[in-house]
């Protein structure tokens, strides 16, 4: 049997369903009835799906079905290339997340836009700076000045506080 990502994902779904059903077993009737009455059939069907996937992985390679009624995937690229590019993009997303957590939105949004355009997209400076400025104006104008979103306090507040000294209207 070949352990495919599809098989592993089905196993994960079955484990999550089992975990949810198990934790719901001691809940009182009102709280636990709906979770149990949905969870048990889901767990059973997930296990059936797991057996089907395991059987399929012994017979053939690749996902069991690509006709999911969802948006379709381009299967012409090699798995290695997909993984490599996917990880690169995931790194950018995580970079943005940790940037927001550490330095706040006001620093991270323009820095992320600028770095991505310059080093990932390899665009020229005029377009990079123009789009970064446009994004900053949109972000500050709509989300800060009009919507008055409550921004989280970053872990390293120094740079954002400095920015607020230069631009005192920031929220």
């Amino acid at each position, binding site marked *: 049997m070949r352990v495919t990502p599809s098989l592993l994902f089905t196993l994960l779904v079955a484990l999550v369903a089992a975990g949810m059903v198990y934790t719901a077993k001691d809940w009182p009737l009102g709280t636990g009835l709906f979770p149990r009455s949905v969870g048990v059939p889901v767990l059973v069907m997930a296990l059936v799906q797991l057996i089907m996937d395991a059987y399929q992985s012994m017979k053939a390679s690749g996902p069991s079905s690509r006709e999911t009624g969802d948006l379709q995937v381009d299967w012409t690229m090699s798995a290695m290339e997909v993984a490599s590019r996917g990880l690169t993009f995931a790194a950018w997303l995580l970079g943005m*997340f940790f940037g927001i957590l550490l330095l706040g939105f006001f620093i991270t949004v323009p820095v992320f836009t600028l770095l991505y355009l310059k080093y990932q997209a390899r665009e020229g400076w005029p377009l990079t700076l123009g789009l970064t400025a446009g994004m900053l104006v949109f972000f500050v104008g709509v989300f800060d000045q009009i919507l008055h979103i409550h921004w989280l306090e970053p872990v390293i507040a120094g740079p954002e506080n400095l920015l607020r000294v230069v631009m005192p209207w920031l929220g």
Partner: protein
Amino acid sequence: MFEAMADGLTALFSVERFLFITFGVVVGMALGAVPGLGGVVGLALLLPFTFDMDATAAIAMLVALSSVPVTTDTIPSVLFAVPGTVGSQATILDGHPMARKGEAGRAFGAAYFSSLLGGIIGAIILGMLIPVLKPLVLLFAAPELFSLGVMGISMVAILSGRVPLKGIVAGGMGLMLSMIGIDKQEGLLRWTMDSLYLFDGLNIIVVSLGLFALPELADMVIEGKQISSVPKQAMKGVGHGIRDVFANWWLMLRCSFLGTWVGIIPGLGSAVVDWLAYGHAKSSCKDAALTFGSGDVRGVIAPESANNAKQGGALVPTLAFGIPGSASMALLIGAFMIHGLQPGPAMLNQHLDITYSIVWSTAIANIMATAIALCFTNQLAKISSVRINILAPLVTVVVFLAAYQATASIFDLVTVLLFGLLGWVMKRCGWPRPPLLLGFLLGGLIERYLFISVRAYGAAFLIRPLVLVVLAVTIVTIYYSVKQEQKVRRLAGKGE
């Protein structure tokens, strides 16, 4: 009644009031186009400014504002697979593949025109129903609403393509995810892992952004192309999309009625209406099982006509009983009260002219929004030929901001990333995402109305006439969708 209709229309014919409607339309359109925002944000922002305005102008502006975000929410859905509002999730399934095939202009044309007609039909039905509102709304008690929830969840069978078991499991997981948070019946915590963030449950905006926006963005970045690689000259334009709406007028009409009906029933919400319409189209259109999901314009016409028509329907319980079917309708009720109007029977007697001016405002707002949107359609469609690496950082920032503004917590970003990963893995492993989202949307509703039904009627709630009708329609729908799938499998087996 006709006198009140005429009074309602003439009341809007002043330069000042017309300008306020235009302002409401422009703000509503802008909010619809930015993911995560929508009519509620606009109403909350503009409501304080209406205190000193005259009642007709203020309410016309706010009604216009709340009617049109569902027209422009198509833009991010089609171009980036990012749902503009919760009412445009289903549009992604065929709208985005159309953009990738160089048919973004066609998708916009079809979406805007079906939105226009859907919005007008919703307004007409609202106008016609005003004299007979009360018995109609009272037909739907908790058991009927529960059966409608079951009907909605049955769409899982239609949205699962050729992997029904995976679809049902995904739908079930969606139902279970909807149970995270404080249990409404007993007040106990379910699967919150002692996290304060999860006490109120997962936010629908964050979940849908994660499930659809990030995986599609990731796949476009991985492929490294522009959204559409079709040359600009070969792109199909807005006129094509408008002709599609006329060619599928019966589908548009059916979905508009469906949307109005869903709007009339308080509690079903705009997040469900597009999926119901999409599922209806997929189960009833010829060869839909073969073409839906790969850029079939009927998959755009159905949800877009329904979600605009829903706005008219949602005004029915709001005006007649003061029962808000959604957060935006609750804010509208607030606006009525600020201006000395009490929603309820008075809106159908003493203030009938104002009620009709609301109907007219809805229709006028839809016409204006479509006219404005059509002017920019071809320019917007050209975005699909811009390299994705230029668009990716901009869309990523908007997705993060849209997710964060849901509850202004860092956990919104954690959730969007986790659901992004889940959505991408599901897509790659051949698991359909729409059933999971549908289960998540309907879980709370089904549980709430099941609980009330059992408490109030016992098991006898299942034999109420309307419940039986809705459940019969559900079974027939599932039967036809299974038949269609079998037909597709037969055709695929024959290699056709």
